[in-house]
Structures are given as C-alpha cells and as structure tokens.
C-alpha cells in the first residue's frame, strides 16, 4: 500500500506531446479514477505510472520513492488490461502463478496465494481451464486475480469493464468496489464511462487533452464543476448550457438576462465579472422544473421514456434544453411546455469556460441526488 505522486509529468511520443504536465497526489488506499474522452491520455498516464512507457519529464513517486527509472516489476504495481492480456496457452492457475514463479516464492506459497485469490473472485472451479474456454467476465476475473496474487502496493486498471456487456459490467463494478473495500489497496482506474467513475471513485481526475481539468470527489465534480468541460462531462444526461449575458451584480449574486427574455438571479460569487459580459449558464436536466406559470417556454421536440423517469428535449428558441421529470411523460412531441430554472442549481461559466465560485463555497446546494426528487423546488 502506498501513495502515488506525479510531479509535473510530461509525455511525448516523438514530437507529439500527449501529457502536458500533470500534478497529482493519490493517497494511500485511495480509489482514484481517471476519466475523460477517448484519446485524452488516460491510458498513457496509467502506463507511465506502470512503467510501460518512459516519462519524458517530471517525477513519479510511489511510496515516497522516485521510480521514473525503475522497471515495472520493481514498482510494486499490478495492472489489469482492457484486453485481459491472459497468456492464451496457460490455464487459469498458471496464468495467475506465472508471475510469482520468479519472485522466489515457494511452490506451496504460490499455491496458497493463487487459491486464495481464486476463492476471493469465485473462479476456483475454473483453475484448469484455458482462457479461450472462459467467458469475458470470467477472463476479467482471472486478470484481476493475476493482479491480486502479486500483492501490489498499487493496482492499475485500464478500462477493465469496457469489453463486458451491460449487466456484467454493473456486477463486476460492484465486485471491484468490494475488492477495494476488503483490500484497502491504492487503486488507479481508467475509464471513459462517467457512471463507473462516479460509482467507484473516492476521487475522480477529469482529464482532457493531456491535462487535468479537475480533481475531486464524485459529488464535488457533480455539484461544483470547475469549468464547462467538467460540467459537460460529468452527469448524464449532459448539463444544459444556455448562453446569456450578465445583467447586473449583487452581493453573492449574478443577475443574468436569458435569451428568451427575462432575468435570473444566480447565487454565485461575481468574482470580477462585469455587466454586459457574455457568460454561459449551466443547469442539469433534473433542475429544470415544468410548471404552467413558468417564465420560460419551448416546443417539445423529442420524448425519451426511461420508465422511472423521462426526458423531454425542448427547443427553447436559443438552443435545445433537456428536462428530466419523474414517471411517464405527460407531454407530446409538438406541444408547448413552460418551465423554470431552479436558480440554486444554476452554474455560471465565464467565456474562458471557468466556473464562477458558488456562494457558499461549502457543501452542495441542497442535498439532491442525480436520480431526481420531485420535491425539489
């Protein structure tokens, strides 16, 4: 068990710079998830930590020791690959035992470790099988088992669930969370799926274009995104963005004029914005309230029924808005709806994309789950 520290880490492949200076401190026993769009450098960053790629500049410390120049095997890490990377000609037992055979462990010791990991992952009955005789989920367990037997200080996962079907993904996700609870090992986990990130992480690192956009707990990122990118990336369906203008400033309040007419007082710190400055207002689909006397209106373009709730895609004149409401839809395509934006849940972003700090600066604005509570007002 160890902490992992990245200090201004850069990585270039030839002339292509991929990682542009990453600073990060992963604490001992923490579950940190790297999330970001495809190609943003998540895998590269993980492979730098693993030692599968050379660090171009910067320092990497594991357990206080600078490991830039250490071979992967000597960094005390274990990695689970997206493609499982099982040895195709070895059975499950040998796949797990192979890496131990050179660590000067005795046969009995190896056997004990392999069987214990197999029991933990419930793959005891598969030990004699070859990888090709296993389902995707079973292969993934073997890959995790192979990591466990090495008793690493740090576990590295590169999109371990992305080759599994939806149901299995949820199940395996829960098991990985349980594994972390049981082992309390430091885990760094890469995914492009923000639901995985939200559910698994102690802290999420949002990456974009080789840079860290924000680091924080899942709810931190959800309630207080630092910028437009994070606001758009975290949360599903995506946060609505409405272009508007600053109409006035108050103490701990910014008055904005909405494109459809009318103004809204958003409770955020003005932090130097000036009247007339264009800003982007962000609001999640759950926080747009349909009501007949609503200040804003639009035409329903598309209805998506999800069972426990439904999504209305509304053309509000200046762009589209998504609204999430509980239960079955009560509006048809083509009908007009009126709605309000719940101002406590509004975010404001400068033209540079940076968020204006929320007024309290402390806890989230009223505890509200992304799953909707119709009582929110």
């Amino acid at each position, binding site marked *: 068990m160890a902490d992992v520290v990245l200090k201004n880490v850069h990585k270039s492949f030839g002339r292509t710079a991929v990682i542009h200076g990453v600073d990060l401190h992963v604490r001992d026993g923490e579950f940190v998830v790297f999330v970001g769009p495809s190609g943003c450098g998540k895998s590269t960053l993980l492979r730098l930590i*693993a*030692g*599968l790629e050379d660090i171009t500049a910067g320092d990497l410390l594991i357990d206080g020791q600078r490991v830039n120049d250490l*071979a*992967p*095997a*000597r960094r005390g*890490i*274990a*990695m689970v*690959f997206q*493609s*499982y*990377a*099982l*040895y*195709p*000609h070895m059975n499950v037992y040998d796949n797990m035992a*192979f*890496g131990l055979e*050179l*660590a000067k462990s005795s046969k009995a010791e190896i056997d004990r470790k392999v069987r214990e990991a197999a029991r933990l992952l419930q793959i005891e009955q598969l030990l004699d099988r070859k*990888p*090709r005789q296993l389902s995707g989920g079973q292969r993934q367990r073997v890959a995790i088992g*192979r990591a466990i037997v*090495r008793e690493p200080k740090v576990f590295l996962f590169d999109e371990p669930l992305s080759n599994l079907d939806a149901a299995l993904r949820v199940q395996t996700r829960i098991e990985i969370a349980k594994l972390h609870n049981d082992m309390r090992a430091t885990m760094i986990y890469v995914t492009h799926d923000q639901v995985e990130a939200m559910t698994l992480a102690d802290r999420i690192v949002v990456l974009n274009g080789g840079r860290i956009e924000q680091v924080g707990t899942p709810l931190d990122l959800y309630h207080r995104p630092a910028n437009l990118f994070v606001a758009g990336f975290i949360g599903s369906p995506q946060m609505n963005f409405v272009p508007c203008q600053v109409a006035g400033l108050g103490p701990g309040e910014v008055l904005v004029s909405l494109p459809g007419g009318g103004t809204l007082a958003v409770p955020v710190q003005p932090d130097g914005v000036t009247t007339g400055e264009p800003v982007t207002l962000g609001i999640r689909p759950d926080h747009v309230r349909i009501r007949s006397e609503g200040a804003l209106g639009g035409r329903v373009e598309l209805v998506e029924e999800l069972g426990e709730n439904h999504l209305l895609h509304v053309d509000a004149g200046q762009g589209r808005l998504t609204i999430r409401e509980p239960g079955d839809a009560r509006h048809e395509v083509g009908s007009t709806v009126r709605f309000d934006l719940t101002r406590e849940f509004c975010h404001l972003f400068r033209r540079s994309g940076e968020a204006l700090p929320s007024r309290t600066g402390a806890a989230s604005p009223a505890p509200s789950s992304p799953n909707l509570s119709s009582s929110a007002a």
Partner: protein
Amino acid sequence: MTSAVAQGNVSVPQQARGRRSSLTRSRIRSAWAFIAPSLIILALIAGWPLARTIWFSFTDANLNNLSDYEFIGFENYLANYDGEWLGLLTDPDWWHSVWNTVWFTLVSVSIETVLGIIVALILNAAFPGRGLMRAIILIPWAIPTIVSAKMWNWMLHDQFGVINDLLLRLGLIAAPMTWTANADTALWAAVMVDVWKHTSFMALLILAALQMLPQDIYEAAKVDGVSPIRVFFRITLPLIKPALLVAVIFRSLDALRVFDLIYVLTSNARDTASMSIYARQQLVDFQEVGLGSAASTLIFLIIAIIVVITLAAGRVRLGEDPR
C-alpha cells in the same frame, strides 16, 4: 495435405446424416464443386506420375525401350538369385545415400530453425530500416539453387576460391582445403550453403507467426517481471509452435529431396550422393527405370514416414490455433 483440408470442409456430424436440410445439401454440393478442379489437377500432376512410378518399380523397364517391360514383383527391391540377395535394399550405395540425406536434413533444418528464430526475433523488433532488412535477407532464397550452388562451388574452390584465400590470410588453415571434394567436408559445405539459402525462408515464416501474437501479454509479462529469456521459452515459443512445426516440415520435405545443391557442389560424387541423386543415377545414367522407380518410391515412403513422425511428435494438427 490438400485433400485432408478438403475433407475437413465437407465432413458432416454423424447425427445430422439423413436429416440434412436442403440448404446443407446444396452447401455440400457447392463445396465439392469448388474443390473438384483442384482435386482433378492434383490427380493429374501428382497422382498419375506417382502411380506410374510405383508401377514401374515393380517392372524391369529400361529407358531404351519404355514400352517393352515385364512385371517382376518386388525383385527391384529385394530378390534372391541362387542364394544371393540382390536389389535396392541390399545396395550399400543406396543406404549410404539415405544416410547422407537424413543427416543433411537433420543438420541443416536444425541450424536453419535456430537461426531462423533468431533472425525472426531480430526482424520483429522495431528498428529503422526494418522493411529493407526483410527484403535483403530474402535475396539468397530468391537465387535459383543451381546458381547459388555454382557460386559457392567457386568460392569454395581449392585453388581459386575466396574462402581458402581468406582463411589462409587469417592463418586459420595452413594449406588450401578441398572443401567440396573431400567427403568429410563436402556435406558440411552443402549444409552451409543450404543454411545460407534457406534461413531467410524459415525466418519469414516464423516472423509471420510472431506478428500474429497479441502484444498485451508481453506487457503483462513485463509488469510481472518475467525475464526476456523466460518470456521467449514460456510464452513466445509455445505460441509459435504450430507455425514453427509447419515451417520445419516444409523445410524437411525440401531437404529430403535435395538434389541440385549436392549434385552441383560435389560434382556428382558417390560419397556424398543424396537419395534423389541415387535415383537419378539409376534412371538416367544406368537407364534402369525399374530400379530408379523403386528408389523413388522408397524416397516417397521415407519422406511420408518422417512427416508423420514429426507431426505426431509435435502433437499439433496443422492449422490448429493454440489459443
């Protein structure tokens, strides 16, 4: 080999017989239609000459007059005239040529396999100019054997050869060696030329297998801290084994039929004759079509037996996926 593959295509599980759907039937019919041309061509160019050779081996046919011969049973192989055993199986020259051929095959194919693996591993690593290297190593293979044999014959010449000159200058030998005329060194010279010519072929077949291997398992091994040597013997070698076996069989088939290389290099010497050289001598020089055919038939049998043994030893079916 071709016909074995063909049978695989059209075999039907036993329980499905009798209840075959019309779709299955039409598929089987079109499968046969597709392989029929190759079966016919194979029968014409391989089956017919083979059958004729086997037939001639049981006759006293002579090259002077091929239409006039008699069936004489196994007399070309083994016959007893007045208490004296005669025939191919009693000819020490034949057995010597068998030994020469088998020795030549074992030694040259072993060396080619080891060198081929090494060259393939090198070419599989990423380095600048790799594509050019791959083309260059194929050059010896692309030169016709007769040409390279003649070429090496000159280089190994006892008086004018560059090799003797080089070794003399380096002080490694005291006097010029008669490499190709001396029975002790002639077969080694043949092995060397064969290795020079065929290692690249071996290397390319192995390289193709190496490039099919998944890369992620090598990263997993790296994380596990497995040494490169162990990675080779425990991961790479088992995974390329089927392809390696195919390459070894191809090369062995070739080497067991060796003719032109040894014929040219050692000027048709008796001591270094291979099985094919022996058969040609009976057929052409001595005009004994019957005896030559018997030798050819035995060559066919020996090669078949060796291939079967090799396949069994590898316990791998051709085309099986180790994964």
